[in-house]
């Protein structure tokens, strides 16, 4: 900071019992370019009342004042909750003591024999305080902004959820009555009418599915995240149970190795496996779908792979598939709203993991994701547990 050419105002509180020394200090400050107003006190009570009456910009204290040590001034400043820098102006203290004083809260220490340093020291102390205050202010504002953002996000999520929820009712009416119309009047009006009704029914049913997907996506973000040890073998079992009909109709084969116990929310993890397996089956190629699920320890926890022999994904699409409602194919080619993977991503990320895909068009896809291991057991140890509990190398479920 450049020395101001104008005189800087400075209000000083001197804790000093020698009038001569006080005079020297004040004169030095004036010489350093300060317009000094000062008060001199010699005892703790005087110090305290001076602080209360007229808080100074800076405190200059002698170390040794007979009845009390100058360092007690730091204590008093704390008690009075005042953020005022204190510079020790003292005779020789020795390095150890000097460092000790700084540790206890003095900003700096100037020898009475080298008072020329004083003004620089004062300026530096004041500057530091200013910077410190600015930083605290900035942190507070950042904190507020973060909180506002979090609140705004929560409100948006609640709104999305409430809207989807409330939309279900009128949608139910539209879907039901267009279907009843179709039933009652099919073939009784003209061909155009049949077509119109058919489009209306189709639209209504798609809307219902969309709203349900939106709600599912919203729930994936809202649900309480009770993280408990979750046995992935059981989780997959549940997912496959839910997919019974699909497995049966597609003739799909799902193989999975013994899987670990992770820290997570079982119902949500079930959703992840269910969505990935359903996709693997849906986007099958000319061959019958075969899905392989495996895991291995990684330094981030456990890495899971869900591999299929389906149609694969082009390199340029590999990121966009995780975006809500992002679809790569028309509805005619493959049904669905494009929300399954977005839900997976949301859930995995809420678990502190990440999900990605490795794929080539026409050569199947492998979806990989990472979940945290149980805190107590490092993956290496968990590996040992695994081989102990599960004898069969792999199980398969043929639909």
């Amino acid at each position, binding site marked *: 900071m450049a020395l101001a050419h104008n005189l800087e105002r400075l209000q000083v509180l001197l804790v000093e019992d020698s009038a001569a020394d006080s005079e020297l200090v004040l004169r030095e400050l004036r010489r350093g370019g300060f317009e000094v107003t000062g008060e001199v006190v010699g005892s703790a009570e005087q110090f305290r009342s001076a602080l209360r009456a007229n808080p100074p910009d800076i405190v200059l204290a002698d170390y040794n004042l007979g009845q009390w040590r100058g360092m007690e001034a730091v204590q008093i400043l704390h008690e009075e909750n005042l953020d005022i820098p204190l510079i020790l102006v003292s005779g020789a203290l020795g390095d150890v003591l000097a460092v000790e004083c700084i540790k206890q809260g003095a900003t700096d220490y100037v020898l009475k024999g080298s008072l020329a340093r004083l003004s620089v020291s004062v300026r530096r102390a004041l500057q530091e305080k200013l910077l410190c205050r600015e930083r605290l202010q900035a942190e507070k504002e950042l904190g507020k902004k973060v909180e506002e953002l979090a609140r705004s996000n929560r409100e948006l999520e609640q709104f999305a959820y409430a809207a989807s929820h409330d939309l279900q009712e009128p949608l139910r009416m539209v879907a039901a009555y267009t279907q009843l119309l179709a039933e009652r009047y099919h073939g009784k009006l003209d061909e155009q009418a049949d077509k119109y009704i058919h489009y209306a029914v189709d639209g209504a049913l798609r809307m219902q599915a969309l709203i349900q997907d939106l709600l*599912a996506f919203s729930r994936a973000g809202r649900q309480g995240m009770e993280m*408990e*040890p979750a046995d992935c073998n*059981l*989780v997959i079992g*549940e997912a496959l149970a839910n997919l019974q009909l699909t497995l049966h109709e597609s003739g799909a084969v799902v193989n999975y190795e013994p899987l670990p116990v992770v820290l997570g929310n*079982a119902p949500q*993890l*079930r959703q992840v496996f269910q969505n990935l397996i359903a996709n693997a089956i849906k986007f099958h190629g000319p061959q019958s779908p075969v899905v392989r699920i495996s895991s291995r320890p990684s330094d981030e926890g456990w890495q899971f792979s869900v591999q299929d022999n389906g149609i694969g994904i082009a390199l340029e699409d590999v990121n966009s598939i995780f975006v809500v409602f992002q679809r790569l194919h028309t509805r005619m080619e493959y049904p669905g709203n494009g929300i399954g993977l977005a839900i997976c991503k949301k859930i995995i990320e809420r678990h502190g993991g990440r999900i990605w895909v490795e794929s080539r068009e026409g050569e199947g896809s492998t979806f990989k994701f990472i979940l945290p291991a149980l805190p107590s057991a490092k993956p290496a140890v968990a590996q040992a547990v695994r081989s102990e509990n599960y004898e069969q190398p792999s199980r398969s479920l043929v639909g």
Partner: protein
Amino acid sequence: MQFCNGDILIVEDNQDDLDLALHVLKRHNLANKIMVVRDGEEALDFLFCREKYDDRSFHYPPRLVLLDLKLPKLDGIEVLQQVKGDPRTKTIPVVILTSSKEERDLMDSYNGGANSYIQKPVNFNDFCDAIKQLGLYWLVVNQAPVNVKPGPVAGQKQ
């Protein structure tokens, strides 16, 4: 429609009726766990988690109780009144399944809080059909009250 894994408690002392009911329920895949008790006192012990059932919890009630009226030790109406009279058990669906034709039993049951009342058909086929209908209704269509937080590892169907 949702299919929920359910426990049923059957309170029945007639062996033939019991065997038939169990057979029908299992054949139609209507229930996972079926518990059978043969008298009114044991029914109460089960539902109130006491005596030999003191390891049971009020947080995991059966989804349905099929209750006969003519029972040894304590009759069905008495069981019904105790179950429906206690806040810990009053919301458990209790369906009376009895051979009684008495109007009095019908009214006492509904007035006592029975969720429903079925007179056991005499005809074999009708009996089987009745069990199937009641199973379909109370275990598939009807929503039972949910008291309980499911276990963390079991996962949930949505």
